[in-house]
């Protein structure tokens, strides 16, 4: 190395245009924008992740000779995607003309309402969906993966019982997965958002 690091450093910064500071017109607006954008991106990424899952379920259904149930599952996942997209549209309904603090507080409220709606869906809709797959398997009676578990003499009531139990287990697992994924994906972002709201409130008081 012929050049000393001091020389590289000093020569480089003589006319270095990159040393122009990022524009800060309103620091909190910039900070808010950055956090809001991150939350938005994470939500959208999370929701878009359902699309390949829908594809996998459809292909898996066909490969396991479970075409009808596979397609049913795919449709349900696509419905979930649509439901989530609808939920996320709540964010765009927020009044961007309101002041920074009001906007952030409203944004936080929408975040909470989206989380609550998702939680309710896991508690009430997932068991229904799982149960409906069992009922479908009972009536379709395909010679397939799931149908193998439904014996000849199994009554509809028994299917409801078994399906209900599996649905309950699914619901609990889904709730735990939801809590864990929320903590992992959004935990830091939500606490940043809360900190920011507290900071701005602190400065105003």
């Amino acid at each position: 190395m012929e050049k000393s690091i001091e020389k590289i450093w000093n020569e480089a910064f003589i006319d270095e245009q990159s040393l122009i500071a990022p524009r800060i017109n309103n620091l909190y607006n910039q900070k808010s924008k950055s956090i809001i954008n991150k939350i938005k991106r994470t939500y959208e990424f999370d929701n878009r992740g359902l699309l390949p899952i829908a594809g996998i379920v459809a292909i898996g259904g066909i490969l396991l000779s479970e075409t009808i149930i596979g397609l049913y599952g795919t449709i349900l996942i696509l419905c979930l995607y649509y439901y989530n997209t609808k939920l996320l549209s709540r964010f765009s309904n927020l009044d961007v003309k309101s002041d920074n603090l009001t906007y952030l507080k409203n944004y936080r409220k929408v975040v909470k309402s989206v989380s609550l709606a998702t939680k309710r869906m896991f508690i009430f809709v997932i068991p229904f969906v799982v149960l409906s797959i069992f009922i479908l398997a009972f009536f379709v009676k395909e010679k397939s993966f799931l149908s193998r578990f439904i014996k000849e003499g199994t009554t509809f009531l028994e299917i409801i019982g078994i399906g209900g139990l599996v649905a309950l287990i699914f619901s609990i697992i889904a709730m735990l997965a939801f809590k864990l994924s929320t903590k992992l994906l959004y935990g830091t972002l939500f606490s940043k958002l809360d900190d920011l709201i507290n900071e701005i409130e602190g400065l105003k008081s």
Partner: protein
Amino acid sequence: MSNDFYITSILPHSGIIIKICRAYTDSEEDFEDFYQEACLQIWKSRNAFQEKSKWSTWVYRITLNVCLTLTKKNKKKHLNNDHFLEPSEGNKAFENEHLNLLYDAIKRLSEVDRAIILLHLEENPYKEIAAIIGTSANNIAVRINRIKKQLKVLLDGKIN
């Protein structure tokens, strides 16, 4: 933060804030986050400044603390020290190729060593670096020697 404060007390030192933030971040997004957080913390701590040191020293100290805290908080995956990689597109923050290589090498140092070498490159005396880092001037002299050797190894053959 008032615009006046930013213009009079931060902007004159933005160069060092940018240089430090660049050394602790790998993306433009992180860099802007770190820069803004540093500005915010400088502003928030302005009343704690007791004029025992120069304002620029105070700015370095706050910026370094912010960078160290955010780096730990974000649990950034630092690049493996064993391999010297060509600067990635995302790391090409400057147009100067040698500077990008130097920055890449600096990013491979430990967090504290990064701070020391940046302060040294900004021509701060050992005593002042020691005051910022919280160690003795002798220790800083030894460490700078060691860091420079490390950087030389990392940069050897890359810069001619």
